[in-house]
């Protein structure tokens, strides 16, 4: 299993969106906000108690990220860079407001912290444990719906999406393994995603409010 490859492709996708944002296309940044909003909120939610403040700080995180975007060099993954901004934004705000953080701030002092190591990873894992019962139930329902949809997929679609999402293979590698053209791989993965999306759409709509 190539666990890192999935992250690499996600990082490449983020890099493309950052470049388009820097070229003046705000829509690209909107896709990044859509992608990372929940993660950033969960991270900040570990540092402050007030839900209203969590949302404000998450917004501020994206604003700061946008302003600093030209300094993002792609040396780390975009989400790692973003999480660092989120933590720093929360720390600065806490210092100003003199509020009591849920976690000891001393565990976040390291400058080279990132999502995949040390204190921030700990935060992320604790965020899962601390999710509200409603959020846990909703996430569980969505996961079950995804699994059920996977089992109902035609085998060629199931193979393609598994090789992509779980094994983290590139389209080219999947094409070699399945002995089919890259275009077919791309189409199968898309169709698999759409089939699964159809199953989870009602659940996402229930959770997401207005649009979904």
């Amino acid at each position, binding site marked *: 299993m190539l666990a890192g490859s999935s992250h690499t492709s996600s990082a490449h996708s983020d890099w493309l969106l950052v470049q388009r944002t820097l070229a003046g296309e*705000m829509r690209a*940044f909107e896709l990044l906000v859509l992608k990372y909003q929940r993660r950033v909120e969960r991270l900040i939610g570990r540092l402050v108690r007030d839900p209203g403040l969590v949302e404000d700080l998450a917004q501020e995180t*994206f604003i700061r990220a*946008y302003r600093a975007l030209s300094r993002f060099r792609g040396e780390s993954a975009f989400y790692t860079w973003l999480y660092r901004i989120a933590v720093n934004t929360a720390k600065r705000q806490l210092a100003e407001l003199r509020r009591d953080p849920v976690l000891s701030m001393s565990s976040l002092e390291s400058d080279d912290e990132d999502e995949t190591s040390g204190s921030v990873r700990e935060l992320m894992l604790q965020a899962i444990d601390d999710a509200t019962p409603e959020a846990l139930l909703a996430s569980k329902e969505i996961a079950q719906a995804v699994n059920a949809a996977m089992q109902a997929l035609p085998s060629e679609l199931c193979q393609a999406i598994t090789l992509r999402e779980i094994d983290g293979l590139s389209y080219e590698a999947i094409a070699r393994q399945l002995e089919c053209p890259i275009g077919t791989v*791309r189409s199968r993965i898309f169709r698999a995603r759409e089939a699964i*999306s159809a199953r989870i759409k009602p659940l996402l709509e229930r959770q*997401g409010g207005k649009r979904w």
Partner: protein
Amino acid sequence: MNSPQNLDAMPTSLADGCESLSALVDGECRPEELAALLQSGPQRQGLDAAWTSYQTVGAALRQSAGDDLLPPSTDFVAAVMARLATQALPGVGEVAEMPPQVRARAAANDESWRWKWVAGLAACAAVAAFGWQWLDQEVVVNPELAKSQSASR
């Protein structure tokens, strides 16, 4: 191969956009596809939903730490984008230059354009006149200087 039900009901342009989005999720989107994706106004809502859904599917299959499966709030995204709409992104000016033909057309339509021309021509004429006068004086003054120098020797 049977199409998923929602794909059958989807307009072709949205289906194409969603396929490009799916490739973008995997970092396999071609530049021209990405450019088209980012300009797809009428399909925006459907594409946002697909983007969120594809991310959720991936997170659920990988069961990644930190990936809760709840969708983002559209109000939140709208609020961030509204705040950003009033701000200039540092560095954007240098990247996104106006194409020359658009720049020329904009200039031609500018009301002050003719006055700028007149002012420019007037400035050029003034410089030329001043330069001519100065050269004229040089011609008159220099022979006398030459004469006085040769006399002193």
